[in-house]
């Protein structure tokens, strides 16, 4: 059943909207996180029980799956709907299915499954503080739409932007995207309109549009949720892009580690083809365009644009020197536009809202919203979409609820391995493409990892350098050899083998690496080191000169010490000590003796936070 014109599409949409809606429905999150918690079994149980108790006609009841809500820690999530209202249940188990359905049939709720925050109880997802303070534009449909059903996407307004864009000339579309100020959401922040215009004006036998779904930054899962939860939004953006630049073929490059994203995108492409939204003469226009999925092979470097293209070509994912841009000579030497999947998902929004509507959110130089992956030592973790310009403090403390447990905020790591760590004094910085960069970090693709005083900043730098060392393609000497060298020094610093001059060497190598590396991976690889050197120099000095790790992370670089005033003599510390170094002293409180080897096990179990890392040789 092909839609051969924009009118066809609208008629189809109206038909879908006229379909009788079920009186009651449940929506089970089938994102990777909730699936890991058993949501598939929950879904099956709901379907089974519904049939058993007679809720089995489509008029009475419907059970659907949705994509990721971006609140995975509370999963499996189930939304129930009845008479125009909704309720969100969290940590749902298969055993809860019957109770949920009986309550639904009676217009009641299951209180114990409701989300709680402190003393407040919340029925609806949109009232939960985590969501209430967000502005979900790109993620609007994630968690609502059934990602395996194009009809659902269309009934929620999908592909209307495509129809609108096809009625405009390619130049008009590029102009619109340019004036809206869309900047790449993958980390580079390059103006999308400018990229598209370069590609349009370049010459070549064919042109390509590519979507970067190779989200490799550890701690980031924005793109995963988007690809799993609302695949058609990405397709729609790409088709509009193809119209704008004159591309005939597109590829979505998806990380190998995201099998569900690959599945849902593949399914979406099949459905789009069936409806004629991909293929020849789309909606009756001159545009003929089709998309294929390329699955990554387990290489972080393939998130770099030229490496990604090499990988699509069936080669090792090695970046190339990019003095000549890909928009001029890219995939198979043809003019190519590569944008991140989140960037593509912004495109239908821009077409729909126009320049002013789009620019009403965000800042002048960074308009629109950005999706962040807020994880780590934060009370409420998950995906956060806010207008650009929102401060770190607002995101971490108001939306995220601040640092979990009794611990203190120490740093926030943004931008993944290309980014850096910022301390408490920088929390009021607005998050956008430019502000964080000035402080030595960057917004990057949106990863935001919260760290508390039990995180060692030298260990964090070491972690990122070792990660990049393993991911380096090895083509250029600065990255291949330089990261190995920096990694060695950092490992030494974290194992009491630091030497005078190490900090200076890290600094000078880091700067030289930034200057000489061939590609973006190497050029930004030093950021985690340089930013922690800049904002947490004392910790480096302590590691180098005193062999002391104040966070109590680096093994053997501290001893545990009991703060007697806080000790309540529970003995939890003594129980976990692998060296039998903690015993009750004459006062009845516990104390650590010289057998302590600095492993850190006791630091986390003390309910009072009475155990603190101390330099070796400093006894009570």
């Amino acid at each position, binding site marked *: 059943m092909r839609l051969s014109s924009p009118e066809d599409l609208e008629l189809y949409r109206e038909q879908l909207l006229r379909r009788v809606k079920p009186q009651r429905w449940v929506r089970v999150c089938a994102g990777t996180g909730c699936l890991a918690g058993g949501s598939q079994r929950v879904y099956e149980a709901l379907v089974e029980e519904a049939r058993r108790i007679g809720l089995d006609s489509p008029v009475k009841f419907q059970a659907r799956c949705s994509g990721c809500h971006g609140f995975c820690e509370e999963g499996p999530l189930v939304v129930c709907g009845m008479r125009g209202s909704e309720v969100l249940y969290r940590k749902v188990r298969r055993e809860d299915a019957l109770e949920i359905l009986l309550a639904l049939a009676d217009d009641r709720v299951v209180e114990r499954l409701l989300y709680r925050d402190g003393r407040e109880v919340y029925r609806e997802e949109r009232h939960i503080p985590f969501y209430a303070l967000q502005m979900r534009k790109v993620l609007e449909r994630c968690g609502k739409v059934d990602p395996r059903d194009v009809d659902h996407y269309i009934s929620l307004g999908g592909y209307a932007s495509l129809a609108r864009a096809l009625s405009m000339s390619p130049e008009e579309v590029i102009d619109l995207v340019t004036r809206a100020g869309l900047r790449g959401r993958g980390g580079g922040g390059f103006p999308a309109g400018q990229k598209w215009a370069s590609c349009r004006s370049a010459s070549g*036998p*064919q042109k390509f549009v590519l979507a970067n779904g190779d989200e490799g930054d550890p701690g980031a899962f924005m793109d995963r949720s988007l690809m799993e939860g609302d695949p058609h939004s990405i397709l729609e953006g790409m088709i509009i892009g193809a119209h704008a630049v004159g591309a*005939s*073929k597109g590829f979505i490059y998806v990380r190998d580690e995201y099998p569900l994203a690959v599945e849902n995108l593949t399914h979406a492409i099949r459905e789009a083809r069936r409806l004629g939204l991909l293929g020849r003469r789309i909606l009756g226009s001159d545009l003929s365009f089709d998309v294929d999925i390329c699955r990554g092979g387990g*290489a972080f*470097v393939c998130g770099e644009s030229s490496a990604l293209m090499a990988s699509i*070509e069936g080669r*090792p994912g090695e970046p*190339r*020197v990019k*003095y*000549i841009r890909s928009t001029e000579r890219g*995939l*198979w*030497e*043809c003019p190519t536009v590569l944008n991140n999947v989140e960037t593509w998902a912004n495109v239908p929004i821009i077409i729909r809202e126009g320049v002013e509507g789009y620019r009403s959110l965000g800042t002048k130089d960074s308009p629109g919203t950005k999706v962040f992956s807020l994880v780590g030592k934060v009370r409420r973790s998950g995906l956060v979409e806010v207008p650009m310009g929102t401060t770190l403090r607002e995101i971490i403390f108001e939306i995220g609820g601040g640092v979990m447990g009794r611990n203190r905020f120490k740093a926030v790591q943004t931008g993944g391995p290309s980014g850096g760590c910022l301390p408490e004094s920088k929390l009021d910085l607005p998050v956008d493409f430019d502000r964080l960069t000035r402080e030595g970090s960057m917004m990057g693709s949106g990863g935001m990892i919260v760290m508390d005083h039990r995180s060692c900043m030298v260990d964090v730098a070491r972690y990122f350098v070792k990660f990049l*060392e*393993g*991911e*380096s*393609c*090895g*083509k*250029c*000497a*600065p990255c*291949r*050899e*330089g990261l*190995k*060298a920096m990694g*060695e*020094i950092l490992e030494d610093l974290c194992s009491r083998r630091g*030497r005078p*001059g*190490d900090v200076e*060497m890290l600094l*000078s*190598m880091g*700067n*030289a*690496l930034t*200057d*000489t*590396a*061939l590609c973006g991976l190497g050029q930004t690889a030093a950021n985690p080191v340089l930013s922690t050197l800049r904002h947490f120099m004392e910790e480096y000095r302590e590691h180098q000169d005193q062999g002391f790790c104040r966070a109590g992370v680096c093994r053997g670089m501290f001893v545990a010490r009991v703060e007697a005033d806080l000790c309540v003599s529970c003995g939890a510390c003594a129980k976990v000590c692998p060296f039998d170094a903690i015993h009750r002293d004459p006062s009845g409180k516990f104390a650590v003796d010289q057998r302590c080897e600095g492993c850190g096990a006791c630091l986390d179990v003390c309910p009072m936070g009475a155990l603190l890392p101390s330099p070796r040789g400093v006894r009570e």
Partner: protein
Amino acid sequence: MKIWVDGRELDVERDVLLYDAMVSAGVEVPALCRHGGLPHEGTCRVCMVEVDIRGKRRLVASCMYPARDQGLKVYTSTRRVEVARRFVIGLLLRRNPASPAIRALADRWGAMDTSRLSPVEGKDLCIRCGRCVRACATFGARAISFANRGWDREVCTPLKEPTLICVGCLSCAEVCPTGHITYRESQGERQIWGRTFHLVRCSRCGDPFATREQLELVRDRGDVCPRCLREEEGLALRDG
């Protein structure tokens, strides 16, 4: 168009590669992976210089950087460039302390002191410049390539075994800047990459000069360069 190199005005063709322009003007710039007869890859980073375009300054690999901006200012010996060069040469020297070519670069341009780092195991002279792989792709039979990635990256034949694909043309050994690729020749036989080739004798003077496989390759290979071969792969998509 006009560009400035170390304060000197040069008149150049648009899109000229900076390295070529500088060397023609008598400016001395170190280089290692660059080879005039091969496609450039810019992997060694030894040839980097500092450019200033409308106030924005950064380092670029001169062997691949095309001059496109009128008034481009190039600096070959700022402190930033010197530190960068010493960094790169120092790292290469650490990996291959026995290579005369790297030693020479270090003596001429300086090298970062890496004595604080642990010595590298093995006597590998390869600096992963890629000249051999490019030469094999351009003149040879595409018998060798890079395997693995990162620190473990190495040049080898498929599965690291002697391969029948190799034609024994010696292009790789000829362009290797550190002497890592070796071969032996004696009595009409040549040994390289674990294989022995029989040398064809010149029909006029009788001297052995090339392998038969090598001569057949030259006769049979098309006249399309590696970059265009890649472009042709893409065209197949358009033609469905």
